[in-house]
């Protein structure tokens, strides 16, 4: 599907000085914001998307990937120093990282987190590069009927796995699809649910919805928590022993099996939509603890605990792109933001991307590998600085982030109408999260909505409106049966959980 020359051209694009500069910028920004409790890579990606408008697609997407990868490394810093993870993914890291910091070894803990994070991430990137093209060939054989069945399957898995309740998951997905239907109907091109606002004729602006839901709603939540509670500066303990400030080769090598297990768990879970890096980190941590000869040392500053959590949560990032690039289905919020960057730059992620934009895809792969290398390099140099970043006051962080969101969305939507939409979705996101509705499902359904409706229309055209024809496609039939089975399974699990 993609010839060798295209692959080489893609990689050479990634390694050009211009693109590397954006990857580096993304990694530095990602590590910086990851180290700030309350911002994290997702919010940083959401804020950064409008600022990438003027860039070519490769540096823009490579920059966002750099932010995401750097953010996971940076997220370990507040987890280790303050027992307050900068990202939810780093919560498992805090279990052993924080005790190490209290023993006067914060740099050893953060460096172990950095090395295992880069190891896990590189492993999952190699898996992504190896298997995504063959998977895309398989995906290309799917017609609209199979795509509809696949999306229904993805929704059923997301609704069941993400969040606390299947019913709330279904409501969140349905709401995302309903919001996606605002604008023009894809088949007849008639206006729909625009309420007289002709600015909505082309649908709700992606940056307004994404930034409102993912960034501003979280900032609002954090503002309410920080209200009247200005944080004091943190003092970092240090034993003065140089060995406590570094990770030796022997220490790293001793953790190799732990990291490989974590990388494998992260890659497998990351390839499935909706499970996410937090679950991967805790699963890897529990399995490492269960398999250890000294389980009692976990939670007291065991390097294996940090290695297990960080290798797994970082491995999810690369694997998340497998369903995105091969099927066009984002498996996480990070992947949903990358899909929005693709769409803003006029590309539709999916199997055709390899055929139409093979050079760009392999350029992205090259950028991901370079981001791992730069993550290691920037982390080695910057960890001492990120430790200081943790003590920056929330007042300046959140007020600046809000101003950046205003400006970014205004630039992306050419005016304050988009900013008003952003605020509406911020409030919606805040209220939904307060009542326990998953924003992840909402945003993924919103991104997939137009393609879902278009595929349904095409399927109805192909089958002349006879839905029983769906069962003539074995793939579609299998996916629909799996959707029903997973729905029943999640429903039963919900009932059992409630009974307990």
């Amino acid at each position, binding site marked *: 599907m993609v010839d060798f020359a295209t692959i080489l051209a893609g990689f050479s694009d990634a390694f050009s000085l211009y693109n590397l500069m954006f990857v580096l910028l993304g990694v530095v920004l990602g590590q910086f914001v990851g180290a700030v409790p309350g911002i994290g890579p997702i919010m940083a990606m959401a804020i950064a998307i409008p*600022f990438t408008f*003027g860039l070519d697609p490769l540096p823009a997407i490579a920059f966002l990937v750099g932010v995401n990868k750097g953010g996971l490394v940076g997220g370990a810093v507040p987890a280790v120093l303050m027992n307050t993870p900068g990202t939810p993914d780093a919560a498992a890291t805090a279990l052993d990282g924080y005790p190490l910091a209290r023993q006067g070894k914060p740099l050893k803990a953060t460096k172990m987190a950095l090395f295992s994070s880069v190891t896990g991430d590189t492993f999952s990137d190699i898996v992504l590069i190896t298997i995504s093209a063959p998977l895309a060939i398989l995906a290309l054989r799917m017609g609209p009927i199979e795509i509809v069945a696949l999306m229904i399957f993805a929704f059923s898995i997301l609704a069941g796995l993400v969040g*606390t*309740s299947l*019913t*709330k998951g*279904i*409501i969140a997905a*349905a*709401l995302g*699809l*309903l919001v996606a*239907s605002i604008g023009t109907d894809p*088949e*007849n091109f*008639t206006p*729909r*649910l*625009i*309420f007289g606002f002709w600015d909505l004729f082309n649908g709700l602006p992606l940056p307004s919805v994404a930034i409102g839901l993912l960034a501003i709603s979280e900032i*609002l*939540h954090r*503002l*309410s*928590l*920080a*209200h*009247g*509670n*200005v944080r004091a500066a943190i003092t970092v303990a240090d034993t003065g022993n140089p060995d406590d400030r570094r990770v030796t080769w022997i220490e790293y090598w001793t953790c190799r099996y732990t990291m490989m297990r974590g990388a494998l768990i992260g890659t497998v879970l990351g390839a499935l939509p909706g499970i996410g890096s937090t679950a991967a980190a805790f699963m890897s941590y529990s399995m490492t603890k269960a398999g250890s000869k000294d389980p009692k040392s976990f939670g007291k500053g065991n390097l294996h605990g940090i290695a297990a959590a960080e290798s797994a949560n970082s491995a999810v990032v690369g694997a998340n792109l497998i369903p995105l690039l091969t099927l066009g289905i984002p498996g996480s919020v990070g992947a949903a933001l990358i899909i929005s960057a693709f769409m803003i730059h006029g590309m539709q992620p999916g199997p055709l991307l390899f055929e139409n934009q093979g050079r760009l895809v392999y350029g992205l792969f090259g950028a991901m590998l370079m981001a791992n290398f730069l993550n290691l390099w920037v982390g080695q140099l910057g960890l001492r600085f990120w430790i200081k970043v943790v003590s920056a*006051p*929330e*007042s*300046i962080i*959140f*007020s*600046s982030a*809000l*101003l*950046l969101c*205003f*400006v970014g969305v*205004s*630039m992306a939507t050419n*005016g*304050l109408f988009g*900013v008003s939409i952003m*605020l509406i979705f911020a*409030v919606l996101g*805040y209220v939904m999260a*307060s*009542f*326990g*509705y998953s924003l992840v499902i909402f945003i993924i359904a919103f991104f997939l909505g137009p393609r879902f*409706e278009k595929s*349904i*229309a095409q399927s*109805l*055209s192909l089958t002349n409106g006879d839905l029983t024809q769906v069962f003539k496609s074995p793939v579609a039939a299998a996916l629909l049966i799996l959707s029903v089975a997973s729905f029943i399974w999640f429903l039963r699990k919900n009932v059992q959980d*409630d009974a307990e």
Partner: protein
Amino acid sequence: MKGTAMSSSSDRISGAFFCLFGLAMYFLVIPVYVETAEGGSLAPNTLPNIISIIIAVSGAFLVIKPTKHQMRDPRRMAITGFYVLLLIAGIYGMSKFGFEFVAPVLAFALMWMIGERRPLWLISGVVLMPALIWFVVTQLLGRGLP
């Protein structure tokens, strides 16, 4: 026990809201705000109607069978309301006077509400950050501010 009762009622409230919202969309909003079209295999209102029904049914189900989810502290939610009002005022102000004049005031109000009183941090947030944004957007990127 009290927490469970609270969480049940919060689920019932949100479930009832979504049930009514779905019904309102199906019976009141979609018939008025979705134009009909001749031909095509999928009418413009088909998918929104199906989704509205799913929302209404799921909302009703949540009323009957609420989860154990704990709602966020209502006091914090009320505080958030004040921040939202401030942001609405900020957007309105920007539409009237422009970013350059409103951003420092908005940043100051936000920092003050959080509880920041240290002059150095206040100056950084109120003067330096808006100035930096202005420089990046207008001078480096060559774009206009709101």
